[in-house]
């Protein structure tokens, strides 16, 4: 709804603002991504606390991942993850074919080099959510053709 537009705009302003500041000052792109990721981390922690207040205990890791793919993703991005794959040894791949934060950018390979900036916050979001559920993780993102991403 309307809130979504507000969040999308805030997010893209955040990305633009941080990179603008970096160009003028330190010029370190890596730091911007880290900042975005850590912001996402805090938000993820807070969000997961509020979402799971009333839900039952999770049985195992896979259950938690399914929760992230369905309920968490739906609340944040208004849709579910399209594809979840795992090697049952701790690695999960979540695929979203129409990632909300990228749909406004392009539908293909244009601007591909800018995509990672927009995914940093969401990686942090997932990492924060998992951390509050007791799982330590590393979250990375990959975009081969917008607006799909893994």
């Amino acid at each position, binding site marked *: 709804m309307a809130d979504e*537009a507000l*969040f999308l*705009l805030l*997010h893209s*302003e955040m990305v633009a603002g941080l990179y603008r500041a970096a160009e003028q000052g330190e010029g370190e792109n890596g730091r911007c991504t880290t900042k975005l990721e850590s912001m996402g981390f805090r*938000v993820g922690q*807070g*969000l997961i606390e509020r979402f799971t207040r009333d839900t039952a205990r999770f049985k195992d890791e896979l259950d938690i991942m399914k929760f992230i793919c369905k309920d968490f993703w739906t609340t944040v991005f208004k849709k579910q993850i399209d594809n979840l794959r795992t090697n049952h040894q701790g690695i999960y791949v979540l695929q979203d074919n129409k990632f909300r934060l990228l749909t406004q950018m392009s539908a293909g390979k244009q601007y591909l080099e800018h995509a990672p900036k927009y995914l940093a*916050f969401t990686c942090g979001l997932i990492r924060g959510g998992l951390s509050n559920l007791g799982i330590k993780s590393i979250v990375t993102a990959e975009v081969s053709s917008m607006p799909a991403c893994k």
Partner: protein
Amino acid sequence: SRELFVLTYGALVAQLCKDYEKDEDVNTYLDRMGYGIGVRLIDDFLARSAVKKCRSYSETADVIAQVAFKMYLGVTPTVSCSSAAGNEFSLILDKNPLVDFVEELPAERASLCYCNLLCGVIRGALEMVHLAAEVTFLQDRLKGDAVTEIGITFLRKAEDRKQKRD
């Protein structure tokens, strides 16, 4: 949901406080970001609300309070005109959703305008409909005032602009 926006905003302010020591710098940054959001938000707003062209400043202030604030933040501030010239208005918020998770400002950040983003957003949006305005916080609950009050001062009369176009 709105919680995502509020939490993200909180994380953003916290990060900015880490990056900038002076409150004025954070305030300026938030205002600039708000401006960038406002100039794009206006399109979304006009598309969703289909309001007709406002014919006076007071109508504009009403639309901001009753339609826009309600649509995006779920609250409706009260509007009052605070000048005889008819170009200064205040929006009074007794409930500000942006500070839902904030209890009080830390002592060393006493002059931080936590919600300064809002001022920038309003200013940017108004500029896109050819209304120059100054928007600032007159009162802030987080700083101990009774209510949160945003002041909008329209800088040029709308009628002049219309005449220029004709």
